[in-house]
Structures are given as C-alpha cells and as structure tokens.
C-alpha cells in the first residue's frame, strides 16, 4: 500500500518536474541566447492557460483550444518582445527584471479584467479523464501521464532542434557571438523575436497543461516562476540539460516532501509537532535544497559551457 502511494507520488513529482522543465527551458533559452531576464515568463504561462480555456469555449473543441492557446501565447510573446524588450537588451539585468516586473502587474490585471479574479475550471475531453492501472493496486490519471509524455517529447524535440537543425545552429551561434552572427548576414533581431516567441509558446504549453490540474487564476504564473528559478539555479543558468535534470529533481523533492514529510516527522517527533512543522518544512524544502546546492556548487550542477 505504501509502495503504491510512493509510486504514485513519484509519478506526480515527475509530472510537476516536466512542467517546470517546459518553463525553465524557455527561460533559459532566452537567458542564454539573448542574455535577457524575463520575469514575465510566468505571465505567459498564465496566458497559455486562459487562452486555451477561452479557445476551447469558442470552438467547442479541446484540441482546437490547445492550438489556439499555443498560437496566441506565441504571438503575445513576439509582440511583447518587439514592443517592450528591444530597448532593454543592452541594459543591465536589473533593469530587465524591473521592466518585466511591470509587465507582470499589467498581465495579471489584464487577465482579471477579461476573465475575473475567481479561479476558472479547465475542462478536459472524455478521452483524457480516465484512469489506468500501471501497477497492481494503483490507478493513475491518464491526463497526468499525458502531461509527462508531452513534456518528455518536447524535451527530445528541443534537443533535436538545438543540436541538429539550422535554427538550432543559429541559436547556439547567437549565444556565443551575436555580432559575428549578424555580420554573416543573419537577421539577429528576427532570430531573437522567434526565440522569444518559441520560449513563450513553451511557457504557454506548460500553462495550458497545468490548467486542469491546478487552479487557473491571476497570479498563477508567479507561483511556478519562483520554483522555476530554483530549478535554474540548481541546474545552472543557460543549460537546457541542467534545466531538465534540475526540474525533475525539484518536482520530485517538492511532491514527495508534501506527501511524506508530515508522516515521517510524526514517527520522530510528536504527532502535534509534526502536524505543525510538516507543511511548513515541506514548502521550504526546495529552497533548502537550492541553498545546499549553491553552497557546494555556486554555478549550479550543470554550468553551461558556452554553447
């Protein structure tokens, strides 16, 4: 019984990790290539969830809603890049942080204006609502398995694009020497816009997949964004491999901590003390993990090697 529970919670951890990875990948791409810190990445996650719900309502089809959500976040990302980010590329990280902080306020309020402040419910089609028995005694939601599958598929695709395609070559070249790429006749501005839109769509994908699991409400993006920062700090800034491994670690540690810390503490200290300290400690666990990683390896587990 406890093995079944552990197995389910492990899968939940991987599922959270996969979503964190989609967010971290976009953030770290933009950071590595454009040297730009986008605090509003969480807003794109939120928009992905809302656009999908709206799209599904208009068209009556979940899949069309998903397509609409992805396309709309992609376009929003590109518009944001052109309108507000371009003047900030040559500025300090701090200015970028503050400007995108302003964008967060804007988008959270925009969503509240358009859809209200109450949380929305993202409906799933029939074929995603079932459960399957993976190991005897454990039934697991099909939807969460789908999330894991989609996330891992995207990870493979991303690796292929970055390492084996012309676009990926340009992305890597742009990261190491922007001026040289421009001198060779590549439109680097366009490349930046495309990369940013691409990162936005990844965030949108994470958001639209999060919709049916967590609550869809203004500010939902910032909760995950801060966890994504933990992932990036643990994995190493600018490293997609680090983002993947960091995300899975953070997802599993957070999920297992929330599920098992209280009962485990209860066997060591008194149940009332465990009742009080368990949840607090569980929500602090990933930050403690991050502190430990930084104390041992200040550049993260997998520092990017400039390419």
């Amino acid at each position, binding site marked *: 019984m406890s093995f079944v529970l552990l197995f389910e919670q492990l899968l939940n951890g991987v599922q959270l990790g996969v979503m964190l990875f989609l967010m971290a990948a976009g953030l770290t791409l933009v950071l590595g290539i454009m040297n730009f810190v986008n605090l509003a990445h969480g807003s794109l996650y939120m928009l992905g969830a809302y656009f999908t719900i709206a799209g599904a309502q208009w068209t009556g089809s979940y899949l069309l809603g998903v397509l609409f959500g992805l396309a709309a976040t992609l376009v929003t990302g590109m518009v944001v890049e052109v309108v507000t980010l371009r003047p900030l590329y040559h500025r300090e990280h*701090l200015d970028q942080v503050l400007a995108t902080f302003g964008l967060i306020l804007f988008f959270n309020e925009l969503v509240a204006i358009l859809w209200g402040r109450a949380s929305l419910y993202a409906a799933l089609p029939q074929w995603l609502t079932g459960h399957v028995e993976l190991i005897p005694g454990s039934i697991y939601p099909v939807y969460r398995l789908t999330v894991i599958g989609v996330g891992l598929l995207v990870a493979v695709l991303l690796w292929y694009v970055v390492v084996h395609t012309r676009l990926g070559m340009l992305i890597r070249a742009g990261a190491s020497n922007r001026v040289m790429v421009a001198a060779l006749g590549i439109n680097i501005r366009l490349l930046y816009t495309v990369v940013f839109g691409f990162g936005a769509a990844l965030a949108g994908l994470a958001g639209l997949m999060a919709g049916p699991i967590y609550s869809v409400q203004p500010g939902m993006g910032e909760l995950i964004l801060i966890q994504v920062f933990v992932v990036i700090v643990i994995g190493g800034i600018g490293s997609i491999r680090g983002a993947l491994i960091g995300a899975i670690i953070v997802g599993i540690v957070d999920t297992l901590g929330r599920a098992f810390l209280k009962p485990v503490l209860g066997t060591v200290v008194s149940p009332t003390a465990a009742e009080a300290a368990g949840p607090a400690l569980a*929500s602090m666990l990933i930050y403690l993990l991050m502190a430990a990683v930084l104390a041992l390896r200040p*550049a993260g587990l997998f520092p990017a090697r400039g390419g």
Partner: protein
Amino acid sequence: MMSTRALLWAIAIVLLLALPPAAEALGQPFYIDLVRRMMIFAIAAVSLNLILGYGGMASFGHAAYLGIGGYAVGILAFYGVESGWLHWAVAIGGSALIALAIGAVSIRTSGLYFIMITLAFTQMLYYLGISLEEFGGDDGMRLKSRSQFPLVDLGDAVEFYYLVLALLLAAIYLTHRIVNSRFGMVLRAAKSNEARSLAIGFSPYAYRLVAFTIAGAMGGLAGALLANHTNYITPDFMHWTRSGEIMFMVILGGMGTTAGPLVGTFALLFVEDLLSAWAPIRFVRDHWQFFLGPLLVLSVIFFKRGLAGLFSGRND
C-alpha cells in the same frame, strides 16, 4: 553646489515637519497616515540602497525583513509582551541574524543568481508565514497591542509620525556615514571592480556580508514600524511583489544616491495612491495595476539614472 543640495534637504525636512499641523488644519488627517507609510517604506528603501546602490547586491528579497520585523512585534504582543524596546530589539536582531544566514549563502553568488536566490529565500519565509496557523496563517492577525514606549505613544498618529520621521532621518544619516567610511569605500570599490579590490588586498565577501546584515537589520526596523502602522501583520509583508516594489523605489529614485530611495519611495507610492484611490474613473481605481505596470516599464526605459539624477545632474 553643496548649498543647493543642502537647501533641497532643508526644504524636504521642513515640509515633512510641517505636514501634520497642516493636515490637521485642513481637516485631512488622512495625509499623516499616508506620508507615515511612505516614510516607513523609505526606511526599507534606504536600507536596500546600502547593499544595492553602494554594494552592487541586487537583493530581490528585501521584503523578508519587513516580515521578520512585523512578525517579531506581532508574536511578542500575542504573548503579552508589550515593551517597545524588546519588540524592536527582537525585530532588528532577528532580521540581522536571518540576513546574516541568507547573505552567507547568497553572497557566494553574483549577478542573476543573486537576484534569484534572494527571491527564493524570501519566498521560503513567505510560505513559513502562511503556515504559522497560530498567528493567523494566510490571513494574518491583528496586533494584540502596539509597541509601548515611555515617552511616545504609537497609537497617536502625530507622535508616531514624528518618531518615524526621526528614524528615517537617522537611517539616511547612518547610511551616509557608513558609505563614506573606510568600510563603505571598500564596499563601493568591490562593486566597481572586484578584481582590483582583491588585488589591493581586500576580500569583498566579509564586507558585503556585514553590509547585507546591516541592511537586513534596518529592514527589520521598517517591518516593526509597518506592523505598528497597520496594526496588523500578514504574510503579505513578505510577498515577492513587495520586494519588487522596494527595489523599484530605489532604482526609480536613483541607486547609490543619498536622496534616491526617498524620492523613489514617495514617487512610487504617490502614483500608486493616485491610481488606486484618487483616479476619477472607477475602472482605473479597480484595475490600477493595469496602468501602473506600463508606467513602470516606461520609467525603466526612460529614467536610466533615476529621478534623483534629474535633480543633481550627477551620474556616477
């Protein structure tokens, strides 16, 4: 040159001194509250300026100390301890200790890592605040009593106002003295060129950590004041947008200037108040952040050196 600046300071201080009687004469005591709140946040901004503006440490977690200071007052009052001295000693000492711990880990990193890690630590404290069910959890709780001092009554709006004003001026003066001391020179040298300051024999780590701890302690004082001001504590004291706001105050006003944090705090809180309470259109009042956000973006793009830079013309 010096005299213009001294004159501006004198005018600002006289205006702040004259505000309570003027507000009462006009029958608008509400302004006393408003400006007191601005001054409390200005103390927090002044303390952040010490590490951000002079030390180059972009802490995105300065709201943590508002929370620690606030909870120190709230929890002590909850258990029936009313002595203001004790409240503030715990608020300042507790903030200093936690700043020391956070700083010890964070200062090993720099740049973007530093921004993210300070943000993450503050988020951790925020969740800790939420999980303290006994002290109101998510909703927070009312103070059982305000901090009690022998001569000043914090329940009296005007007396509390002048106390905050005095503390603000003390914080500005103290920061000014720190920055211009030998210690401050090393701190600024490490910011402008770490390799050189290492080469002449100063290891910046210890200096940065001490500055980070001092800033945390001052932030804790601001938190204790804020709790007394609102008569309420909530985890929202430590919300990450609070940290962003304080950072914005410093940068909007002008990093690494004496007057910057003061100007920035007053400007930002004034605009926030203008939009959220005084705007003639209800839609603007209800959704003021929708308008504040783009204003912040524009101010980052156009005020590169902050508002204080506009007055002094000093851009270093």
